């Protein structure tokens, strides 16, 4: 197992500002489902479906993944970002505002919102990407996570570049021909950026927090590169079947992770284990359904179901599971040398509410998939999405509250 170094970790509020913003996007998605969910289930290309998708990807996922990188790069890869506190503020604000503007642009078809999103999201990536790449190239580390993070960042850059181009096409500034970048944008965003970054984090956190054996060396060494090659094949070869290798590689990651979990050394399981298990099951189901979707078999419901399973069932589940471990852990580590009698990490969360979040999330994924064939299910889906946002945000705030109270005890104001 590769070594970690927490001495270079940024102060906890650097990643936390991203993590605490993320649940707000779940709340917005819940409100949108209640207000306009029926339209989203008609086709993946409707304004509401695009808005909901980007609330999850450019909103929830991007916030958590950028925050995780601020923590993961120095700790797992020895790559120290230049002035992380200073860098985090504009990257956080621009990415959050850019995601809201993008969703506004999609839902209301407003040209200035698209343009604003292009400027804000583009600027946040233009700030973060070079700083991260310089840090990654300077580090002497050679871990599998380091290679994976480099590939994930390149995929993020090209996914945003394709997204920005399409947003300009939707705003009427450039030709609509550019909307053909969509399959590449999806593959880069979900496979290259999301999938590879989850793997990079998974190589560390799955063995550590679920007491499983390490990922096989052959797999950790080749997964990120295989995803990059598979995306290249899909982009270059003009045939739907060219995306099959990417689907296969992603399914392999899910299968290897399930295999790791099966071999865990500890019988007792917690919410993180359940969230990861659900995520891998949904990812496998999404990969299976992606085959008929890419050949346009089964109508409009199939690609929507693939998106729900991959994004909500896969990524959002994994992220929730990781946040419940990482947020208390980084705060616990921060408090340990500063405070006598740090509260045990397990007490920083309310396990009962975390379990309720897990139940609501399972129900949410289920009713969202059902809504693809019977649209009235968007109403319970909206309510459950709001409940999930409140439960996740509430628990994260509770952990921060415990940490602040512990710090106040040693630094009375």
């Amino acid at each position: 197992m590769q070594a970690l170094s927490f001495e270079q970790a940024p102060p906890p509020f650097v990643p936390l500002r991203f993590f605490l913003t993320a649940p707000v996007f779940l709340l917005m998605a819940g409100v949108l489902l209640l207000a306009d969910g029926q339209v989203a289930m008609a086709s993946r290309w409707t304004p509401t479906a695009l808005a909901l998708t980007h609330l999850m990807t450019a909103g929830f996922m991007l916030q958590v993944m950028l925050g995780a990188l601020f923590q993961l790069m120095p700790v797992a890869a020895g790559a120290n970002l230049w002035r992380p506190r200073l860098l985090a503020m504009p990257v956080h604000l621009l990415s959050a505002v850019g995601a809201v503007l993008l969703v506004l642009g999609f839902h209301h078809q407003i040209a200035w919102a698209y343009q604003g999103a292009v400027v804000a999201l583009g600027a946040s990536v233009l700030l973060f990407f070079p700083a991260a790449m310089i840090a990654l190239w300077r580090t002497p580390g050679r871990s599998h996570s380091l290679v994976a993070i480099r590939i994930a960042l390149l995929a993020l850059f090209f996914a945003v570049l394709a997204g920005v181009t399409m947003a300009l096409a939707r705003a009427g500034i450039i030709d609509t021909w550019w909307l053909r970048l969509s399959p590449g944008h999806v593959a880069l965003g979900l496979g290259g950026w999301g999938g590879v970054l989850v793997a990079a984090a998974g190589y560390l956190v799955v063995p550590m927090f679920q007491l499983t054996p390490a990922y096989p060396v052959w797999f950790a060494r080749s997964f990120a590169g295989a995803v990059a090659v598979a995306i290249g094949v899909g982009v270059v070869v003009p045939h739907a079947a060219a995306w099959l290798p990417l689907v296969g590689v992603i399914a392999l990651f899910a299968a290897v992770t399930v295999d790791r979990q099966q071999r865990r050394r500890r019988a007792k399981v917690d919410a993180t284990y359940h969230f990861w298990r659900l995520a891998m099951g949904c990812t496998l189901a999404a990969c299976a359904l992606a085959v008929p979707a890419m050949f346009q078999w089964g109508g409009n419901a199939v690609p929507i179901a693939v998106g729900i399973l991959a994004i909500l069932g896969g990524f959002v589940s994994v992220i929730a599971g990781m946040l419940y471990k990482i947020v208390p852990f980084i705060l616990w580590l921060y408090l340990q040398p500063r405070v006598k009698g740090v509260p045990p990490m397990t007490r920083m969360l309310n396990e009962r509410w975390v379990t309720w979040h897990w139940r609501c999330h399972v129900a949410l994924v289920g009713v969202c998939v059902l809504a693809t064939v019977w649209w009235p299910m968007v109403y319970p889906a909206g309510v459950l999405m709001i409940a999930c946002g409140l439960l996740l945000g509430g628990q994260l705030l509770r952990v921060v509250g415990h940490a602040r109270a512990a710090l106040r005890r040693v630094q009375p104001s």
Partner: protein
Amino acid sequence: MSDQLPPIVVDARHLLPPEPMERTLEALDELKPGQAVLLMIPRQPAPLFDMLRNNGYTYTVESQPDGMFHIHIRHEAD
């Protein structure tokens, strides 16, 4: 002197972070001169290493054939 007292054993093979560190720090509080703490753990605990270096302890790491690590911790003065 260093071999006179048996080590305080912290078996963290089935514990989730940060319990191994919590138990190790408790054991270090009880450490007598010349005594060591033996931590058995399935990974190299980087945050603990940082803390040990900053608080006057030395440690050695032995990897075991079963994939575990045995970490021997002593006061720097011993």
